[in-house]
């Protein structure tokens, strides 16, 4: 029996650097947007409110020896949507999770710097109280194995000192479902098991659940990455609608989504905040080369 020779092995070179973008050609008026989608008509007008809610001051987070976030400072305002963008592993999710102190659930996580909510250092609050005011929606929709009604009412029931009767919370549940744009679809049967909803509906249910707590800040961790385009569009419209009531911070991989949805954008790379600015500026005329490279798709 003959032995066949194995196919030749190709090696990647050991050092790999992200490619830099070639400067695009001008299109007439001298200034050219770095990204092709700037100027696309999907954006809504900026809202008229801007209320300071949270401040991140020189925040650094490490898991054991490895630094995940290095000395980041940001404001978070009600009336604005802040998008955190950057390639995988840049620390944007860690930054988001430190805003409601979920980083404490990870063993070995250490924090330095300060985050304040309405002027009060969040480290001095009870974590559970903080998380009532800063709620989070996760990447993978995670409705509880209960009915739609119970999911949304969950927060209201578990936060009150005495368990409220169903009639008492029904109004708040309908309200939250309405704000999340889900009420029409589930109104006829609120006792439907939540796990039987479609992915997009489940995610909107999670948003409704988070809104039921009447938070001041809503954190969204790549909420649409597991969803189809129609659900994505619905949720993006929802986010723009909600921004006047709650400060919204959204982590996203999708640059077009960030452009559609955000008022301000923070670009992070390897744990550092490379650039922070309005969406129009960051996508149109970023001041940092690295930002320019990322948003034009040179690496990611």
């Amino acid at each position, binding site marked *: 029996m003959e032995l066949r020779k194995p196919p030749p092995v190709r090696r990647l070179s050991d050092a790999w650097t992200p490619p830099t973008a070639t400067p695009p050609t001008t299109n007439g008026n001298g200034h050219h947007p770095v990204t092709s989608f700037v100027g696309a008509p999907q954006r809504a007008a900026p*809202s*008229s*409110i801007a*209320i*300071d809610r949270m401040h991140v001051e020189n925040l650094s987070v490490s898991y054991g020896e490895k630094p995940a976030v290095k000395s980041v400072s940001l404001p978070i305002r*009600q*009336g604005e949507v802040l998008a955190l963008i950057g390639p995988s592993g840049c620390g944007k999710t860690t930054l988001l999770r430190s805003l409601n102190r979920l980083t404490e659930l990870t063993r070995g996580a250490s924090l330095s710097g300060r985050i304040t909510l*309405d002027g009060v250092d969040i480290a001095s609050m*009870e974590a*559970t*109280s903080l998380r*009532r*005011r800063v709620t989070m929606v996760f990447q993978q929709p995670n409705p509880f194995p209960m009915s739609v009604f119970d999911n949304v009412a969950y927060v209201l029931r578990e*936060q*009150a*000192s005495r368990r409220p009767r169903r009639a008492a919370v029904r109004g708040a549940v309908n*309200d939250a479902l*309405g*704000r999340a744009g889900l009420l029409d679809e589930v109104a006829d049967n609120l006792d439907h098991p939540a796990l039987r909803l479609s992915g997009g509906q489940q995610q909107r249910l999670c948003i409704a659940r988070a809104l039921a707590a*009447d938070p*001041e800040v809503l954190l969204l961790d790549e909420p649409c990455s597991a969803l189809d385009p129609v659900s994505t569009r619905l949720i993006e419209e929802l986010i723009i*609608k*909600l*921004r*006047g*009531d709650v400060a919204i911070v959204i982590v996203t991989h999708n640059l077009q989504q960030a452009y559609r949805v955000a008022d301000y954008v923070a670009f992070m790379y390897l744990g550092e905040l490379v650039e922070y600015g309005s969406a129009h500026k960051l996508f149109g005329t970023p001041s940092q080369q690295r930002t320019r490279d990322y948003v034009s798709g040179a690496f990611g």
Partner: protein
Amino acid sequence: MSTAPTATAGVRPRAGTASAYRLTDRLGLGLAWFFGLLFCAIAGAIVIYFAIEGIRYLRPGLLFTNPAPGVSESQTGGFLDPMLGTFIIGAMAMAIALPVGVAMAVWLSEFGRPTALARVAESAIEMMAGEPAVVLALFGLTLFELHALSFLSQTTNGVVLGQSFFAAAALLALVGLPMVVANTREGLQAIPSHVREASYALGKTKIATTRRVLLPAVRPSVITGTMLGLGRVIGDTAIVLLLMGGTLTFQPANSVPVLGLLRGTGDTLTGYIYYNAPTGDGNQPDKAYAAAFVLMLMVLALNLGVDLVVNRSRNAVRWS
């Protein structure tokens, strides 16, 4: 709701409790602590109690003398035979349970057709794991009293005794079997399918894959299952009482060296303890304490062994 601007910034007024924990939550947490610590205390008490009493009554001589019928403490000898009995019966039972258990686990995990048989086999293992040992012992009695199986024990006057090392070992194998099957199966199911597919893609048969790739990989699970099964086997009393004849010393069936012994009657540490407890016929609590101490040491050693194996395997193989 439209995005109406709020006039004032700052903290929204919030109804509800000042603290996030209600009173019932605190009570619940306290109860959890209480029960957890209570459990540790009970375990500690048992271990310490038997350690103290055991050390008080255990003399090395006991380990090396045979039991003898008698009345007072000095007459009744030690427990060499029962201790050897425990070792022998444990080895015999697991010698049957290990290969049979691994074979069953392999079949359930890798083959498993027809599905009806697989389902029945799974429930059979579950049922066997939950069966009272007393019932297994009764079954063993009828089984080994059959003339067809008389070669496994002694026959007097045409009546098969049905009680011997063989008989007890066979039933004890049933006691240890579910542990081996469950652990081996768990280990096999933990191996991701791409490992098997890689082997099939190289042209190996399923059985060769199992022998050369899978079984070596689940060795820790097999060892764990065997040790856990062995723990159950050496701790059993009911089967020993009914199927080993309960003679304080070995009573071989004939003078053939090993087989005669195994066809004969004897006892184990558990039977010895039962006999010497205040409720038993022998009523020598001191001896019972000493034997209990030795048995506890064996059980502890097996537990430690399981912990060691599990810890080492956790750090060893990592499937990507």
